[in-house]
């Protein structure tokens, strides 16, 4: 990789705020060849624009100029469309490889981004209930004697993968020269008693070596799809990770949200490009993959005074992947009738985000119900895993 292409890759990271994380499970497990990618859409992605409920009689009036027009929306089913920038996801939906959960929410009613993201990622039943991420605990729960490494690609590692299982991380822009390798060996001696820096450097150097071995992990500036293809190459590498998490930022649309075009549309294009890149890069492994795109909460049902939307409650979750079972929307539609809105302002939830996550972890990665109810999502026995998501 040339210096300039490495710089470009870094710019791409900065430009779209993409973080990749991956965690390999062991090949011997029943689900060992299954892949799971979780995309966290930060800033509260507006579900009513992701999957506009065109069949709901109140939609157009509530949304006014930011409603997605029926003639621009892509086809999902008789009641819902998809945002025009979600072309890949719409095409997948047509093949039974993408579905929408239009009204999901975290278990507590919170409208703070930061607290809601914490809850989405810790998988707790209540705020501050846990300091570790549910995905890390899911990896830990796959049992003794099944050591699992986790890999994050990006400058920071999000809460969802923090926990007892040590994580690796990688982002483009590193450069392993003989000098760096030699200094890192000297540093390892200085880090012997350091529980933070010692494991991090060892893991980072190892991952950098893997990246070099994969060769030419180059992506151009703002080439989101190329970046996702690159992430997929980690997933498909020999002994590579089984689970990946991607963070996308910029979904906080308080003003000038736009409709078919505009601010939100640009970010949904990034999301669609990531899914397209994953599909392309995973190749045959796509048929064994589930992608889940989730956000901390939805936005207000009504357009606000500045052409945007404020912090709301239920939002949309997107499921995609070749391992998905064909079907309609996931969960019920609460409607946008005035008396159906939560606190008179937000789309009401019909499904707990944890139910979807649990359904995928059980049926795709083979975790058992008891572990999911207690360890991965504490105190969640009442939130049954969503069935029939995975083929």
């Amino acid at each position, binding site marked *: 990789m040339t210096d300039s292409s490495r710089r470009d890759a870094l710019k791409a990271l900065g430009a779209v705020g993409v973080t990749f994380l991956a965690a390999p499970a062991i090949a011997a497990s029943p689900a060992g060849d299954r892949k799971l990618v979780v995309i966290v859409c930060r800033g509260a992605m507006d579900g009513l624009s992701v999957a506009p409920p065109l069949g709901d009689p109140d939609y157009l009036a509530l949304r006014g100029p930011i409603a997605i027009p029926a003639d621009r929306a892509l086809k999902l089913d008789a009641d819902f469309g998809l945002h025009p920038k979600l072309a890949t996801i719409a095409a997948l939906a047509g093949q039974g490889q993408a579905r929408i959960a239009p009204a999901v929410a975290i278990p507590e009613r919170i409208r703070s981004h930061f607290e809601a993201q914490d809850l989405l990622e810790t998988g707790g039943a209540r705020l501050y209930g846990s300091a570790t991420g549910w995905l890390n605990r899911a990896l830990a729960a796959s049992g003794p004697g099944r050591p699992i490494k986790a890999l994050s690609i990006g400058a920071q590692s999000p809460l969802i993968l923090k926990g007892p299982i040590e994580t*690796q991380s990688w982002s483009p*822009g590193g450069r392993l020269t003989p000098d760096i390798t030699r200094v890192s060996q000297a540093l390892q001696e200085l880090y012997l008693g350091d529980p*933070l820096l010692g494991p*991090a450097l*060892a893991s*980072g*150097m190892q991952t950098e070596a893997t990246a070099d071995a994969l060769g030419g992990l180059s992506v151009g500036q703002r080439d989101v799809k190329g970046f996702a293809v690159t992430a997929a190459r980690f997933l498909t590498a020999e002994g590579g990770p089984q689970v990946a998490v991607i963070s996308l930022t910029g979904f906080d649309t308080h003003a000038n949200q736009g409709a078919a075009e505009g601010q939100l549309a640009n970010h949904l294009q990034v999301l669609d490009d990531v899914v397209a890149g994953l599909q392309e890069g995973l190749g045959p492994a796509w048929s064994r993959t589930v992608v889940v795109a989730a956000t901390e909460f939805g936005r207000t049902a009504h357009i606000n*005074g*500045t052409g945007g939307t404020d912090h709301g409650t239920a939002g949309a979750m997107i499921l995609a992947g070749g391992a998905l079972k064909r079907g309609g929307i996931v969960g019920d539609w609460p409607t946008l009738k005035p008396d159906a809105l939560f606190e008179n302002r937000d789309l009401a939830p019909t499904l707990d985000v944890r139910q979807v996550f649990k359904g995928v972890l059980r049926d795709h990665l083979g975790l058992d119900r008891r572990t999911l109810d207690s360890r991965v999502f504490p105190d969640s026995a009442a939130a049954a895993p969503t069935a029939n998501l995975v083929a």
Partner: protein
Amino acid sequence: MTAGVSDDLRAAIAVTRFGLGARPGELAAARPDPVAWLEGQIRPGGADQPAGALPDSRDRLMALLAYRDEVKDVKAEAKAAPSAEPSEPQAMSDSERRAKSPLQRERKVALRPLLDGVADEILARTVLAAETATPFRERWTLFWANHFTVSAVKVQSAVLVGPFEREAIRPHVFGRFEDLLVASSSHPGMLEYLDQARSAGPNSLAGQRRQMGLNENLAREIMELHSVGADAGYSQADVTEFARALTGWSIGGEREPAERQGRFLFRPQLHEPGARTVMGRTYPAGGEDEARRILADLAAHPATADHIARKLAVHFVADEPPPSLVVRLRTSFLDSRGDLAELARSLVTAPEAWEPAARKFKTPNEFLVSSYRAVGAVPAAAPHDVLQPLTALGQRPFSAPQPNGWSEQASDWAAPDAVVKRLTWAAGFADAHAPAEPVTLAQAALGVRLTSAVATAITRAESRSEALTLMLMSPEFQRR
């Protein structure tokens, strides 16, 4: 521990934990009385300003409006002559060349001076941090700039972050918290970043006549992040009421008289009429002052004292700070009625803040600044010396991903990839700044915190630059 060792250790704590890392000679300056050295940096007049003639928010906003006019003109021309080529193709940057159409390219060319201005601002601020002889004053300032985050997520906030920090934050960091809160909440940078400038009451003149209405973003973040904190027990109705009180807080535009352009402007035609109730208190209808009264009460609220005390303790001492320190700072905030100079004095005299173990892991910006200070140099070029490395390390200046600012948690900055990135940057930096006497430099930078293991590694290094790399990457230098 002898008295001499203790003084040396206290000097090392003063320059790293409260300061920005030792410059050559700084440990000696702090050593006679480290607390007095810190207290002497508290100044009622506020923080230092970065050097150079940096435009104020008015000039930056007017330049942005001029740019937008230019874009309109270019659009009109493009319509008239669709095949027009940009006038100076040889001066284009890569991203300009990659832009799809001539129109987009012209836009990027026109935007460049604005973005160069932001880069100048970032360089000036980093140079100030790298060379200041009053580093506690600067660290205290950077804490407040992060507390009241304005981020370059859109062009209009990008061009205003620098002026925001210089105009709303720096003058008030040792004044009253209420003044800092009002200054930040009313500055054009914050009004743009949190979508306040065009928020209108539904029953205001503008709300009735035009399709304008409420935006609650600024109100929510002031309560959640800047003052009482998310767990203070306020409701959605409190947020909405505060947002209604804030309607009318706006920015003077092109049509206003020159002295009002690009500055805070109260627009009565946007203001929601009527009395407000926020967190159990009722405020009579008061136009512009309605929000000021609410801000005054929020600033004086005990929950604000809790929130600020905890954040300061986390920033300066430990991700999980001693509870007694939080209580001490909270009491100081309440007793002094939010006097930030008094709060700073309470911090640097608190025994809990002088525990020898360095528990804070440096953020990328702290690591970069302290590296420059260690070698007694300053960054020279914004893109190469500051923007590229900090972007790679996940902390692009002025670009916190969300309004809660940059993380304080070690685990967020010490991911495996980030540690390798620090190492590769440190190696390149050390090549450019290799010292004649690496051990002397390490002693000047770390003082008694230089361990024998690190000193030995430095003496065994193959080259001067490798020795400096090891010092910069040592556990002692990575923490403060």
